[in-house]
């Protein structure tokens, strides 16, 4: 591939990063873009552990949170002129603290991957989250700590009071962090991380200590999570124990998994999707987290390679120009599936609301009438049946579309 083709996706990335706020420039949109930026770095850092290294961590928020806490303290130091430096460097400070924490915790966590690793990460996560409530001088107790990012040297006249200014700063950091995390995968350390993930025993027999390989990935993941924490501190100027706890660790796991662990771009997709669900969906329904849970479980069961995996499954078909073969099968299965999902959502929302009437897509439904329920359930049932019937033909079409024109397998 020529350099231009290879870097074309990076160009698209840069254009998206700096161009999107021009198109979506409302205050809400900028706020969402900021959240996405933070989530992207955080989720990518998590994937260094899980997708690249095969280490399932339930305590990754620790590095994010610690990075964030030190960053807010740094903001306070700048504000009171105890130290003077531009807030441009804050994410780096967060990153360094995340790295230090990673070095310390990684020194005893990385002996094994698998369940033992997961349990240590869970234990450390809970330990540190609980300790943060005890050590209130650094962590501010339940209320957390807050700072102000408008102090310190100006950057070309900007004091970063506005969210859009912080966004552009974040965008630069997102680009740098993403680039470096990608480049890591193209180094011996990154490749050996993959090898150790696949077969730690064999990796040792080609000369590498599996533990040391994992340790390097672990520290790097801590560094970038800390950077994400720094970005968080700059955006919200406020941080609490919640940002280190198990719920936040769970959320980043969700993001990376839904997006797709096996692909570099997977966590980016996951971060974007989850941030959108979090900010937009929550306006329409109180139950968005229930839907998230259902979606997550369905992804684990039916799309184990995530959204990115789903897209990549069509790679062969795309390359072979067979995409049009899939259009009709997708419509035949897709429409009933969509109908089923919609009916279920309506049923769930109706049972949750205590209002007299229920508005949906311009239609007004009456929850009190049993006919409404019967009709909805009937439609849902029929749709489900249609999906099951048509699954076979979709799989067939997909296989044909992806198959080689002549037999390649030997």
């Amino acid at each position, binding site marked *: 591939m020529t350099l231009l083709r290879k870097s074309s996706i990076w160009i698209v990335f840069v254009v998206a990063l700096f161009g999107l706020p021009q198109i979506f420039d409302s205050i809400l949109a900028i706020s969402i873009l900021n959240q996405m930026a933070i989530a992207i770095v955080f989720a990518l850092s998590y994937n260094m552990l899980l997708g690249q290294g095969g280490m*399932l961590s339930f305590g990754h928020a620790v590095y994010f949170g610690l990075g964030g806490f030190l960053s807010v303290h740094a903001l306070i130091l700048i504000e009171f002129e105890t130290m003077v430096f531009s807030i441009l460097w804050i994410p780096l400070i967060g990153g360094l603290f995340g790295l230090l924490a990673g070095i310390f915790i990684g020194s005893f966590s990385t002996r094994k991957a698998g369940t033992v690793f997961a*349990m240590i990460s869970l234990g450390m996560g809970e330990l540190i989250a609980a300790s943060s409530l005890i050590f209130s001088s650094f962590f501010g107790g339940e209320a957390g700590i807050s700072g102000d990012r408008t102090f310190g040297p100006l950057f070309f006249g900007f004091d970063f009071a506005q969210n859009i200014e912080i966004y552009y700063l974040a965008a630069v950091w997102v680009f740098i962090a993403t680039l470096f995390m990608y480049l890591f995968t193209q180094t011996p350390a990154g490749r050996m991380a993959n090898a150790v993930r696949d077969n730690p025993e064999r990796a040792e027999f080609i000369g590498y200590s599996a533990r040391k390989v994992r340790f390097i990935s672990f520290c790097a993941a801590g560094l970038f999570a800390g950077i994400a924490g720094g970005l968080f501190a700059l955006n919200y100027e406020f941080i609490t124990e919640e940002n280190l706890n198990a719920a936040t660790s769970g959320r980043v*796991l969700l993001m990376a998994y839904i997006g797709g662990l096996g692909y570099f771009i997977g966590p980016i997709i996951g971060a974007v999707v989850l941030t959108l669900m979090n900010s937009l969906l929550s306006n329409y329904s109180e139950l968005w987290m229930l839907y998230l849970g259902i979606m997550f*479980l369905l992804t*684990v069961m039916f799309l184990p390679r995530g959204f990115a995996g789903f897209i990549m499954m069509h790679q062969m078909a795309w390359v072979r120009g067979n995409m049009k073969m899939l259009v009709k099968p997708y419509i035949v299965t897709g429409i009933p599936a969509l109908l089923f999902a919609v009916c279920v959502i309506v049923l769930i929302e109706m049972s949750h609301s205590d209002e007299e009437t229920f508005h949906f897509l311009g239609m007004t439904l009456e929850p009190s009438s049993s006919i409404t329920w019967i009709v909805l359930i009937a439609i849902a049932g029929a749709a489900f049946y249609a999906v099951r019937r048509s699954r076979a033909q979709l799989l067939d079409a997909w296989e044909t579309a992806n198959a080689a024109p002549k037999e390649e397998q030997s």
Partner: protein
Amino acid sequence: MLEVLIFATLNGLVTGFLLFMLASGLTLIFSMMGVLNFAHASFYMLGAYFAYSLSLYFGFWTGLIFAPLIVGVLGALVERYGLRKVHQSGHVAELVFTFGLAFLIEEAVQFFWGRDTKNYQTPEILDFPLFTLLGQEFSAYRGFMMAISIGIFIALYYVLTKSRVGIIIQAAITHPQTVANLGHNVPLIFMGVFGVGTALAGVAGVIAGPVLTTFPGMAAVLGSIVFVIVVIGGLGSLAGAFIASLLIGLLQSYAIASDVGMPDLLDLLGLSFARDHPLNDLWTINLPQIAPVLPFLLLVLVLIFRPTGLLGKREE
């Protein structure tokens, strides 16, 4: 002082037995499938909620009998239609699935029952002090909790070691292929063990609900501690889980009941620090404060120095 010790011990035992009821189901499931069921405490929560709802209409005792059954059936269905499907994607996928399940159950509980704490009452006939010692009461309900726990363990022990079904299960746990070749329906056994494991968690929920409060966060509170227990006790070891459960139950109970703290330790060493010392939080810490943290501290120490746990058998 003495009554503090006695009651702390009794309460620690009650908690310990309860924790073992959860840990035993988790250990059985882990021994069998090699996966730590992250959602185990969620079934405990479901047990409490189902029992609560049943108790509103039919009284506590109906709840005690039927709620675990409902939970067990749900567990079996989860194994059959969820976990089994994910099994082919590997251990990580299984762990992530159970994690997602825990998340979903917590949301579902809030959906069906609301976010408030439920007023799940202990039955009236147990609403009296069992005995009074040195001025403090020990409620009959707590005695009941202990009795049920012990009763279930004895039943479990006999079923597993003396009955034909139990022996088949023990064999299927370590040698599923051989057992299948002998003509037994191993998938059914798996489903059954998962169902029983979750039903056990459900029983724990039914009896603990009134005491430990029934609210949507109850799974999260106990969930991590149960993992700590099975890991410390040794993944796959029931005896280890038993020892660890009692250990943690007693440890926490003593820690909460004591009022020893860092200041006492510093006094002993003849040190003292000014109030504005940066590590002041550390110097003023006391044992009850760090009681919730102790299990995790223990977990990390065990995992570093003895990763197979106290009596661990199954190596990855």
